[in-house]
């Protein structure tokens, strides 16, 4: 009955600790990662929590403090795990080529399959979404899917890779060959334990007009943009190179590392179980796969 008193004092202490925490954005973490991995690494060859946050980013809640509530987050995670035990939601990143099969209300009895490159991944919890893009019959098509939509029958990763940028929305303004993918593409299987390859391809943009001012976005995956000098001058004026030193912004925009560890410690046994079943399935698939050549 009286445990709340001790709890309260604990939470206050942890709050003050949080102010002194490490920042958790992917760039800032690199130096501390090795130090922490020895502490965080769970036993028997499981993945560390630092890896989890890249593989399962949607398990981390919205860092906006006004929207947070621990019980809601817990309920959300349990629902996500329940969905994940039914269908295999694989590890994927922006730049990964995927195929999504959904059961369609408009064509009953005939599931729809769409192949494309993931150009954006956002949202957290049950609201997480991703956008696939492809060029079909010389027509650019984009479809947004919700990761935990119960009408999704299958999510396949055809080529697991990353690109140089966090968002590939500039593919909308680039030449169509850069976002054309064969819909009958076969899945490429990466050897186990290899790190996710980064595709260093540079995309050529179409001439202006564009949907956004790409010259201001500091894009790495785009070839040299052919524009008059004044555009770059203006871009340099508006650039915010000091933002990466804004610790407060980083703090408000990320989940503290201790909390991340807490979250992943709670679900890691279930995630590990899912991973084991996925590996079994993968082995089976590679074994059964017929190699028919005409």
């Amino acid at each position, binding site marked *: *009955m*009286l445990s*709340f*008193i001790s709890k*309260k004092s604990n939470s206050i202490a942890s709050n003050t600790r949080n102010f002194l925490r490490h920042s958790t954005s992917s760039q800032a973490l690199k130096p501390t990662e090795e130090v922490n991995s020895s502490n965080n690494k769970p036993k028997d060859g499981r993945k560390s929590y630092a890896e989890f946050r890249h593989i399962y980013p949607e398990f981390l809640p919205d860092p906006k403090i*006004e*929207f*947070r*509530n621990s*019980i*809601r987050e*817990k*309920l*959300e995670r349990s*629902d*996500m795990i*329940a*969905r994940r*035990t*039914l*269908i295999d939601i694989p590890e994927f990143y922006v730049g990964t080529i995927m195929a999504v099969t959904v*059961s*369609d*209300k408009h*064509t*009953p*009895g005939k*599931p729809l399959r769409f192949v494309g490159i993931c150009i954006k991944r956002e949202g957290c*919890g*049950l*609201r997480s979404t991703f956008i696939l893009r492809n060029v079909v019959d010389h027509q650019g098509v984009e479809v947004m899917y*919700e990761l*935990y*939509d*119960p*009408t*999704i*029958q299958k999510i396949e990763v055809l080529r697991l890779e990353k690109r140089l940028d966090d968002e590939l929305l500039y593919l909308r303004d680039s030449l169509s060959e850069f976002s054309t993918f064969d819909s009958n593409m076969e899945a490429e299987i990466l050897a186990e334990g290899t790190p996710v390859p980064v595709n260093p391809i540079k995309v050529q943009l179409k001439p202006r007009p564009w949907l956004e001012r790409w010259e201001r976005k500091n894009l790495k995956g785009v070839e040299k943009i052919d524009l008059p000098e004044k555009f770059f001058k203006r871009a340099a004026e508006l650039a915010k190179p000091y933002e990466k030193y804004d610790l407060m912004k980083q703090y408000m925009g990320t989940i503290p590392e201790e909390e991340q560890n807490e979250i992943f410690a709670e679900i890691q046994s279930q995630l590990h179980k899912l991973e084991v079943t996925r590996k079994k399935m993968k082995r089976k698939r590679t074994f059964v796969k017929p190699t028919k050549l005409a």
Partner: protein
Amino acid sequence: MAFILSNIVSKTCVKSLEDKLLALSISASGTQIRERHIMNPPPRLRNPTWFTKKHRVVHNDEITTDNQEFVKEVVQDKYSNKDESPLLSEIAANAAEWQPTFKRTGVIARKIGIYPIWMKDGTKMTTTLLQVLDNHVIKYYTPEEYENSQPNKTRVMKKKGCLLLGAEGTDPSLLTKEYCGLFKNSGVIPKKFLARFFVSPDAALPPGTPINALHFQVGNFVDVRGKTIDRGFQGVMKRHGFKGMPASHGVTKTHRRGGNIGGGGEKARVWPGTKMPGHMGNRYRVLKGLKIWRINTKYNVLYVSGQNVPGDTNSIVTIYDTILPLRKPSNPVPFPTYLNTDEIHEEDLYDDDVHQFCDPTIEYNET
């Protein structure tokens, strides 16, 4: 209090005497005395009995840790005796049968966030999660008691009693003595939040009765009352959704202003109720007729439809059975509240239309 009461009584006595005298004088002299007559006197508001100072001024007394522990122990001893809590089976045995005209108590809850659910036909819906806190009945005022404490009694046809509920137990050493005294007879630890609910006398509950999320059933409709987000002093565009004025075409200095606020002639004044800039939000509003789609019995969470329940996330709301006539329950509901604690429930109770996350993937078949 007693002094004020006697004062009022004496005042009324004097007034009646004066009236009599006046009546006499009229009959005697025949002169007419006019007095100012107020048509609708403003109600003389009197705070309810539980409206006392809540928080104590905490001084830094530099108590040793031993003494702190001792205080904790004392508090624990005082509030751990469970003999006083009423026997739920006894209440259940004495309870009347539910009738559609009865009004049950509501509950105090916390809005904990927003969350999508999917229906069995694949459509998505947004729900608000309301966590029912550790509600306990603090006190019950019978209709007569409650009426007597009201200053200007009007004749009430359907008499309702008043049930005082508390939620979220807290450290009594932070509260004032008077506030803690409210909880004396209920045998529960002092609560952070209090709320009153008007109930039919048949739905009254003895002090100390716990109320949980199963007070409501899946598929029923509820009204949720909360305090809207405080947005401060706002202009008419944000506060009332006015269109504002053009950005260009010779418009100067009036882009977000309301424009004209009244006409000429007969009504050459600003009419009461004219929409103008002012304070927005931070007032109680009720959202009515929300369906309960799912109930989590472990954490006492109700999933109600809509994403516009008044208030911030983590703010306190009160939940009532709906007053909308077409959405009132037709089947019996737990009356006076859910009392069967022995029954074991599944962790999640779902409406029939809701797709559970552990259900297989939705497929559409040709018909």
